[in-house]
Structures are given as structure tokens and as C-alpha cells.
């Protein structure tokens, strides 16, 4: 009987079975950031323990860093204290820190892959739910809480039950103007925001085979939005090519040995799954969210649903969403006025996202009433984009070009919605208050759809705005 990638990685990293039946699982790579790690370092100290394998933990700052005024001290003393705390903790414990002056700082889920730290067949943990992003490389990657960050720092392991595996096949060719973001929003719309609880999602099929590594990351990133803590794609040549030559990628003879191992870790042809779900790429259209959970999604040519027409279980949340979003059932999505456009985040703040948008907006202007910001996911992305002239294209179109960080994805830094502003956002969460204003409103969509909304000042079909056929 064949094994899944998850079976193989789990087996290799199992230290032992704990008395409660869970696995003591070895975490090969630990990523940390400023928000969820300070308490963990404190707990390790309080227990009289130390960081066991400092060379297997990597740190960066992303959530609280301002994206415009980046000189220290930051104007927010709490944010400033958090960066200093992480700096101190890393220095004391010997953890590598991709700090602000390093030129390698960025959103933790962008920095790991970019540095070649994220590798197939590894286990990865980070005190952040979007750690599932790293699954795009065929790693098993978990978002964890602060007590588990402590566990990993002190023991390089954590206690966890083995998830079931649902294979999600997407086959066929996406229509022009339809992107990997639309694919994951579509999947969540159909499987639900809690459909993945207890599962790891294995994304496969010809659509995934054809995806670039960055497109795969966008999908795996949002696995957690579908309730699946882990999402992964089996590694292939696309993965290996992405990793070749990166700072932490194996070199020389080690590279060949690593690639051989990475090939072997992919799920066997006859692997057994707990569940299989199939989607057709051709059936997916540009998708946006209209509500307060990522599952409240519609195609761009649909109207805001009437909660009473939805299945009974979805109605209460739909009513709550309509109230919060100040929308009326039956209103077409196209034409809803926006106030802010946010292009960035660990979902869609990578170079290919910026390139795709820049290609289409050249020579056009952001609508006068819209505040539009572009936030590269890392300093690495920013510097390449600047060299390629992308920053200039964005600026000329009326976007603000910012420094790397989480920015307006969450309300922990100066980039926030104000009042009930409506934001067309390339991020991953449309929860009430997520973008920093309790009454702020978020509509999630692909980067190109964010750009279309920015230019027209309203939710628009990017295929029409940019003539994508």
C-alpha cells in the first residue's frame, strides 16, 4: 500500500508516541517572528531550559514593522520594544535573525522560501497560522501557538496528532485572468471554512503541476482559511528549480543527494487518502469575498447573496456579514465602491504578483478617491522589483510603494483602515476588524482584481478592465 508525503515525513520525524497518544514530532525548521515569540523565550528561561538547536530556528520581523517610516526607534514604543526584544532573544540564543538592516527582512512566509530554508520533506513550525504556505514545497508545515513555540525552542519537537489527508485535485487549464488566488477562494467556498478541520490538504492535479512555485504558495497559504492546518503540494522539478542556488539550499554533491530524497518523499501513485475531492479549473472564475469569512465568496459576475437563500447553517453568519459589510442582498458585486486597495501579504506579496499587476497597469491611474498601497513581501522582493522598474510603474500609477512587512493585512502596524472603509485586498482574511478598524470592511481577491478595483474605484472584472482574454 502506497504512502502519502505526509505519511513519509511523519514517519521520518516521529521521535516517539506520547502517553496521550499524540506524536512527539521533530520539527526540522522553526521560524519565528516578533509577535508570538517573546513570551515563548520567557517561558524557556523560566523553566531553566535553553534553545536546543539554535541553528534550526530562523527569525524575522514582519507584523509590527512600519512600512513607511522605518527608522528606529519606531514612533510606536510598543512596536519598538518588540523588535528590540526579538533582537535580544536571538542574540542571546544564537538564532539567525533576518533583521531590518540585513536586507533580507520580510514576511516570515516569504523569507523562508526565498532563502531556501523551506525545503521538501522537512517539518516546519512557526507561531503563525499561515505557516501552511511552506507546504508548497512538499514540507509539512504547522502554525502553532506560543506555548508550542516554547516547546520547539526547548526541545525541537512538539506534541501533535497525525492529521488525515484529503487530496484535492484541480485539473485543467485556468482561463485567462483567473489565478491561483481564485482557485483557493473557490476551494474554500465549496469545502467551507471548517471543512478542513482534522485534515491536511494535498493539492494536486494538472492545474497544480502547471503552477509556478509562487502560485502554489498562494494556495497552500490559505489552507488554514479552509480549516486545514496543513496544506501541501508534492515537490517536482518546479520546486527544485526554484530552490536551486538559494542561500540555504544544498550545494554541489549535497544538492544531488537532496533532490534524490525530495523526489522520493512525494506521495506514491497508489497512496491511500482519507478523502478525495475533484475540481475543474475551467469552472473557476475570478472570485471575491463579500462577507466576514473567506468562505463567503462569489464569482465576480454574481450578486451579493440573500442570506435566506443560503443553506440553513450558513444563514446566521451571512446576516451578520451583510450587516457588517453594509451591503444589500442582490447588489451586483461589480460596481461596489472601494476606498482602499492593498496589494501585498504572505498570500500575494511575492515578485510574480507584483510583476503580473505591473504588466497591466502601466500608463493608467488609480481612481482619485482610492488610497492604494503596494507592500512587497520582503526586502528581497522589494529590491528586485525596484531594479526591474516595477516600483516606478506602481508609483506612476498612483500607488504608494512601501517597505516590506505584513502592513494592512492585520491591524498591528500603522497601516490600517479608518472607520468603515472598504478595502479590496490581496490578503487572506476578511474577519471583522482584521485590517485594523473594528468597522473596516475587507473584500479578498487576486492581485489583478485589486488593481482593477484601484483603477476604477469599484469592484471590477479585471478581465474587462485590462482586456485579458
Amino acid at each position, binding site marked *: 500500500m502506497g504512502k502519502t508525503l505526509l505519511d513519509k515525513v511523519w514517519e521520518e520525524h516521529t521521535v516517539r508516541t506520547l502517553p*496521550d497518544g499524540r506524536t512527539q514530532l521533530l520539527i*526540522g525548521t522553526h521560524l519565528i517572528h516578533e509577535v508570538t515569540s*517573546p513570551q515563548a523565550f520567557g517561558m524557556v528561561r523560566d523553566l531553566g531550559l535553553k534553545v536546543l538547536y539554535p541553528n534550526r530556528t530562523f527569525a524575522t520581523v514582519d507584523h509590527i514593522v512600519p512600512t513607511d517610516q522605518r527608522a528606529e526607534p519606531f514612533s510606536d514604543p510598543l512596536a519598538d520594544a518588540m523588535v528590540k526584544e526579538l533582537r535580544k532573544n536571538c542574540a542571546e540564543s544564537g538564532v539567525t535573525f533576518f533583521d531590518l538592516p540585513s536586507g533580507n527582512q520580510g514576511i516570515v512566509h516569504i523569507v523562508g522560501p526565498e532563502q531556501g530554508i523551506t525545503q521538501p520533506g522537512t517539518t516546519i513550525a512557526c507561531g503563525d*497560522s499561515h505557516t501552511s504556505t511552506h507546504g508548497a514545497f512538499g514540507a509539512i508545515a504547522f502554525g502553532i*501557538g506560543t506555548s508550542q513555540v516554547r*516547546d520547539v525552542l526547548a526541545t525541537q519537537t512538539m506534541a501533535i496528532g497525525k492529521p488525515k489527508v484529503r487530496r484535492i485535485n484541480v485539473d485543467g487549464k485556468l482561463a485567462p485572468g483567473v489565478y491561483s488566488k481564485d482557485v483557493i477562494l473557490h476551494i474554500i467556498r465549496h469545502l467551507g471554512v471548517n471543512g478542513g478541520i482534522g485534515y491536511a490538504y494535498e493539492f494536486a492535479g494538472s492545474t497544480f503541476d502547471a503552477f509556478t512555485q509562487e502560485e502554489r504558495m498562494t494556495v497552500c497559504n490559505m489552507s488554514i482559511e479552509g480549516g486545514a492546518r496543513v496544506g501541501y503540494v508534492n515537490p517536482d522539478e518546479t520546486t527544485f528549480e526554484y530552490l536551486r542556488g538559494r542561500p540555504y539550499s544544498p550545494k554541489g554533491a549535497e544538492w544531488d543527494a537532496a533532490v534524490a530524497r525530495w523526489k522520493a518523499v512525494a506521495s506514491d501513485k497508489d497512496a491511500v487518502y482519507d478523502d478525495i475531492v475533484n475540481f475543474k479549473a475551467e469552472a473557476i472564475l475570478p472570485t471575491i469575498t463579500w462577507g466576514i469569512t473567506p468562505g463567503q465568496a462569489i464569482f465576480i459576475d454574481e450578486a451579493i447573496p440573500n442570506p435566506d437563500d443560503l443553506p440553513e447553517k450558513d444563514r446566521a*453568519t451571512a446576516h451578520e456579514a451583510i450587516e457588517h459589510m453594509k451591503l444589500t442582498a442582490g447588489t451586483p458585486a461589480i460596481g461596489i465602491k472601494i476606498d482602499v486597495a492593498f496589494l501585498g501579504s504572505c498570500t500575494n506579496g511575492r515578485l510574480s504578483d507584483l510583476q503580473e499587476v505591473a504588466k497591466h497597469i502601466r500608463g493608467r491611474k488609480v481612481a482619485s478617491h482610492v488610497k492604494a498601497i503596494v507592500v512587497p513581501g520582503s526586502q528581497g522582493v522589494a529590491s528586485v522589483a525596484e531594479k526591474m522598474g516595477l516600483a516606478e510603474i506602481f508609483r506612476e500609477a498612483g500607488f504608494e510603494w512601501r517597505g516590506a512587512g505584513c502592513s494592512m493585512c*492585520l491591524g498591528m502596524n500603522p497601516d490600517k483602515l479608518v472607520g468603515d472603509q472598504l478595502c479590496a485586498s490581496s490578503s487572506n482574511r476578511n474577519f471583522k476588524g482584521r485590517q485594523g478598524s473594528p468597522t473596516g470592511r475587507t473584500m479578498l481577491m487576486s492581485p489583478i482584481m485589486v488593481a482593477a478595483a484601484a483603477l476604477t474605484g469599484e469592484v471590477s472584472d479585471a478581465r474587462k478592465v485590462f482586456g485579458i482574454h
Partner: protein
Amino acid sequence: MALEKITQVSGCGVFVPGDDIDTDRIIPARFMKCVTFDGLGEFAFADAKLAEKAAGRLHALDDSRFNGATILISGSNFGCGSSREHAPQALYRYGFRAIIAESFAEIFFGNSTTLGIPCVKMSKNDIADLAALIEKNPSIQVTIDLTESKVTTDDVDFAAEFSLPGHAREPLMNGRWDSIADLVDGLEDVKTRVATIPYLSC
């Protein structure tokens, strides 16, 4: 450090209705600018409370009838979204010692268990019945019995089954819910295992 054996949680309950209550709602991100968890309790559901006020309604946690409640009751997929442990930390510091919901998001469930907060799953109907009882008589004592897998109340004839996976029940009942001691016990095995894995041993 010996931990308390949690076999039963009793206290007043409060019903916070809604499905998919995410951890941003439980503790908005701006309150996470801190290097300790102390003081998070007062910010639990901060923005949800304000929003209810603005709409001319009262959030359950602002309703003085439910002051001192130690058992939180809610809908499905409770605690979804961000992995922030700040969410269960805030609820614990607010005074909650157990949560009853239709279902829980996975990371939140694990984080809560590690803090010794049992998160038990009960059916929608039973939750509605319990919520109605509490609404009628907020001082009713709710008891979650981990041995019997039952939720009962003191002054009326309410009893409902709940489910709690063994990997959470067993450590809670045996005072091993914080796994650090068990993990440290395995450190020799950790080192042995590390030596067998090529990307870690080279």
C-alpha cells in the same frame, strides 16, 4: 511542575452566539503588542463589544447578568483564523475555565488544551437549550464532567453529552495538559532522531 488534574469544571455560563468566531474577534491584533500575556483579559472581545454597543445592543460579556461566568458557550468553528495563543490566554485571564461549542478550530483547540482549558463539543440543539436556560437564570451552575462526558446544570433537568478527543481528555484529567514535561523526557530520543535525518545531521 505538577499540574492540576482537571476532571470537572463548574461555574456560571455565558452564551456568545455566532459561528466562525475568529481569534481576531476574541483578541484584536492591536492588543498583541506586548511581550507578556498579562493584562490581556480585559481586552477579550473588545471590538465585538464596541460594535454591539454602537448597534444599540449589549454584548453578552457586557451584560452584568453574566458577570463572573467561567464557562463560555458558542457556535461552530470557534477560534478559527490566527494561531495567536493570545486568544485563549485572554479568555483564561478574563476568567473562563472551559469552553462549550459546536466545533473548534484546530490550532485554537490545541492552544487551549495546553493552557488547561477544556474545549468540549456539544450539539447545536443542546447548546441552544443550555443557552436558553442560562438566559432565563444566569446564576445556574453548569458542570462539565470529563469522566462522564456530560454537561449538567444544578437546578433543572438538563444533561447533555459532549465529545472531547482522548488526546485532550487524558492529559487534562491526568494533569499533563502542558506537554513540555513529556517532551523534555524524550530529549535523548530527539537527539537520536536528529542524527538519522540528512538535512539535520549534516
